[in-house]
């Protein structure tokens, strides 16, 4: 445990000196602050930020996570030649990246939001929760791909395809299914399918909080009924965190057998 904490500590030390962290914070900060200054109320700002959160965070987390893993290859070799267990190293690298990425998001979005609107709005907390959860999920997927794929170009290519799938293609496939099977009752199927896309789960949690689920018609009403109560929200959050835990576990399994 102490080894794990030490690895995280040095990882943070290294990453937080990089200029890109300042840039990433500045982008979120200026965007959130700007949206408030252009006259948006907290609900409108949350809705605008939602699109950024749902597309940019998964993309940055998955691409940066993969690059980070490949770039740490020799450093991993150095640490694995020391009396250090593979589980400590894997979790140390994972947490050493997700913690600063989450912190950057929380500062970049959380501080201007707090300053302009206070922290008492529900959308504020959901926005932070979804942003942080997606960071953890997509960094976990990035690590899994990077462990499994030896080739850097192939690995980065796969992460972009996976992001495209979850961010764009998945919804297209669902629409196609709904269209093709329009004569059948599909509400439950839609509900189940939404669990298999972390970005959709994030979107649903946010839309329900923003109280605009009615815009989604009957399905929205159904989602509102299921996800809107405590049980439904808990299922959505649990599904999001399963999306994080599964690739971390699979990634560690592959990492423990990996040749360096």
């Amino acid at each position, binding site marked *: 445990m102490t080894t794990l904490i030490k690895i995280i500590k040095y990882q943070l030390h*290294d990453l937080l000196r*990089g200029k890109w962290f300042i840039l990433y914070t500045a982008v979120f900060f200026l965007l959130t602050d700007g949206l408030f200054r252009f006259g948006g109320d907290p609900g409108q700002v949350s809705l605008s930020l939602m699109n950024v959160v749902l597309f940019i965070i998964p993309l940055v987390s998955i691409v940066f996570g993969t690059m980070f893993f490949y770039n740490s290859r020799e450093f991993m070799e150095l*640490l694995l030649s*020391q009396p250090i267990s593979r589980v400590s190293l894997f979790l140390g690298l994972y947490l050493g990246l997700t913690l600063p990425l989450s912190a950057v998001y929380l500062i970049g979005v959380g501080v201007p939001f707090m300053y302009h609107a206070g922290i008492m709005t529900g959308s504020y907390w959901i926005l932070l929760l979804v942003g942080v959860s997606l960071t953890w999920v997509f960094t976990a997927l990035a690590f899994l791909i990077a462990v499994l794929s030896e080739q850097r170009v192939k690995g980065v290519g796969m992460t972009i395809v996976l992001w495209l799938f979850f961010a764009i293609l998945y919804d297209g496939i669902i629409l196609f299914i709904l269209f093709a099977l329009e004569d059948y009752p599909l509400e439950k199927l839609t509900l189940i399918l939404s669990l298999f896309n972390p970005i959709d789960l994030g979107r649903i949690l946010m839309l329900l909080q923003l109280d605009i689920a009615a815009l989604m018609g009957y399905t929205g009403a159904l989602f509102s009924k299921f996800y809107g109560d405590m049980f439904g929200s808990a299922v959505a959050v649990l599904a999001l965190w399963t999306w994080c835990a599964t690739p971390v576990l699979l990634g560690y399994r592959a990492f423990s057998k990996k*040749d360096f």
Partner: protein
Amino acid sequence: MIDIKGLKKRFGRLEVLKELDAQIKDNKITAIVGHNGSGKTTLIKCLLGLDKYDGGDISINDFKLSGDWNYRSQIGYMPQVARFPDNLTATEVITMISDLRTGSTTHADELIAYFRLSKEMEKPLKTLSGGTRQKVNAIVALMFNPDILILDEPTAGLDPVSSSLLKDMIHSEKDAGKTVIITSHIMSEIQELADTILYLLDGKMLFDGPVDELISQTGEKNLERAIAKMMT
């Protein structure tokens, strides 16, 4: 003593180590030689637990390796390429490794002075030259006073002065009773340093014995020519 029995390792379809048997004796400098792709680095990585072997056994001082990682506290490893986190300084890397190996005492300060690195210690590692980073690498391998030293192409990238300093250090480590395993493509360097040679050919042991014996067996005047004769 390091005892290797029937070691097998394959990467996909490529069989790199084919039931390799070898013994690496204590208090000797053993060079592992062979052409590119003969399995030298794979053998070293199997010893370190960086590569998982498919069959056979490795024992270090009668301790059989089986997925455990504590035994690595006896080993100092200097890889071929020195890469560290870009934004850390050499001092921070040394502090980090010392911190991770709680309870181990270091003599890093002596080594920093020996390799004349004092002025470079506070600069980010990404700004240092390859040779300077290699010296930091050497310090990391040597600073815990390990019983076994594994050096993969240790003088690659070093200037003649630093290379001589490192070779002198390797000799003094041997005199202090250490077991040293070294790989290099520079045969004159191996002739200068090594007591014993393990010559690998396509994942099998072709020769295991003293350097002089290999030279006399081939009837050549130096190690480079002796190895070249064995390769052809």
